[in-house]
């Protein structure tokens, strides 16, 4: 996972979370910033090998909670990105199968089963 280093912040009241560029990509950070918008806005900057994320709270509250929230979201986004990358080909395949005209039975003109509550499988229209 990401190497995360907390810095108390140079400026007073600044909440900063740092991510190693080698293990977290910008897309994950941007998606995370989008997702936590109800609680904070996030400024993302590149500094050397690190992404420095400064968190600005929307409401008053514990700084720790904000960092937790953002880090948890980043972890989730990284997981999502990994799932998406691995499953993209199968996802496309399922869509292709779902909307193809030829049936799963290769014999020409066969009707498709419909996986729903009917006594007989539905016909393709």
């Amino acid at each position, binding site marked *: 996972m990401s190497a995360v280093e907390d810095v108390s912040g140079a400026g007073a009241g600044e909440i900063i979370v740092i991510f190693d560029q080698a293990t977290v990509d910008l897309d994950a950070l941007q998606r995370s910033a989008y997702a936590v918008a109800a609680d904070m806005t996030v400024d993302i900057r590149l500094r050397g090998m690190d992404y420095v994320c400064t968190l600005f709270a929307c409401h008053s509250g514990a700084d720790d909670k904000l960092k937790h929230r953002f880090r948890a979201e980043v972890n989730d986004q990284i997981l999502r990105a990994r799932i998406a990358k691995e499953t993209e080909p199968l996802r496309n395949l399922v869509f292709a199968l779902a909307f193809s005209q030829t049936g799963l039975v290769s*014999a020409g003109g066969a009707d498709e*089963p419909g*996986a729903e509550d009917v006594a007989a499988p539905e016909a393709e229209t």
Partner: protein
Amino acid sequence: MLKLTGRTETTGFASPVTDDVWRACAPGESAAAGTLACLVPAGERPTAGYGLYLIREARAPALPGPAILLGPDLAHIESGDIIHVAADGRRVTVLWKNSALHNGLLLTEQCDNYCLMCSQPPKDRDDSWLFHRARRVISLLPEGARSLSLTGGEPTLRADALIGLLEHCQQVAPRLSLHLLSNGRRFADPEFTRRYAAVGIADIMVGIPVYAPEPGLHDFIVQALGAFDETIHGILNLASLGQSVEIRVVIQRHTVPALVGLATFIARNLPFVGQVALMGLEMTGLARPNSALVWADPVDYQRELVEAVDILTTAGISTRIYNHQLCVLDRTLWPYAVRSISDWKNDYLEICQSCSVRDACGGVFTTSGNRLSQHLRPVR
């Protein structure tokens, strides 16, 4: 419980009987109708012209043809029943019992699965004569014959023979309601499924076992890798050609924990099936040596069974419970219980004499011997 086979004595057998499959008939039925064996009532003089006569007690006056004396075990044979007669006339086996609720024809003992609890263990030998015999039986079915099961082993292993048999059925007995038992794997071949559907039988259902909602457990239970994949593909192919499918689930120790998951899987993926049959174990065949692996007492799985039935029925799927005694079944499930054990192998225990619901209950498998639930008792 009926005995279906027994030794017999003969009179007037000058040479071996030419045909092996006969239908018993009453005197007066046209002898020209084929291989009819006349069942002669006591004291009557039978007319000549039959190829074979069946009597229940020895008689002094000679009969006009070869005769078989049925012993007390086979005295239940009636007009309309179809029997197999050994060439020397010394053994008779009932293949079709006209008065029975269920009749089945064994088509082969070969199988490409090897289920842990198989009640008809596979034998790998050429038994193609079973198909020939089945064909003969179908040709001789009496006028009122309504339904027939075709069983095995795995009947689809001999694809041409099976298709041919179905075509024969369609020709000579088109109003017959057929129930074909199969592991479904052959139907993964679209061409075979197409041939099966093309026979055009109006009333035929394929009964296909599915034991788990995923390959890991199912393949283990049927002892064949890749079986689940082929079986489900087979079900889908059948459904896409409008063919009726029943899913059969034998409830045993391994299938119990997956029962609710399986019901969910069927309701979501295969909701078009005509019926789901949840079946109690018959402790015979492979189930005996494997009994430690497979035995499950029904009282221990009622919670899962109730939930599985709820899932299936709420989804609109016709659901039946077979081979369960009412006393070990949750009361809410009684409406789904069917008296399903074949007449010739069902029985009741002594304690059942005082049971108030005995007549509605299917009893136990005689073939299970004493491998029964510990909790059978009369219902007050």
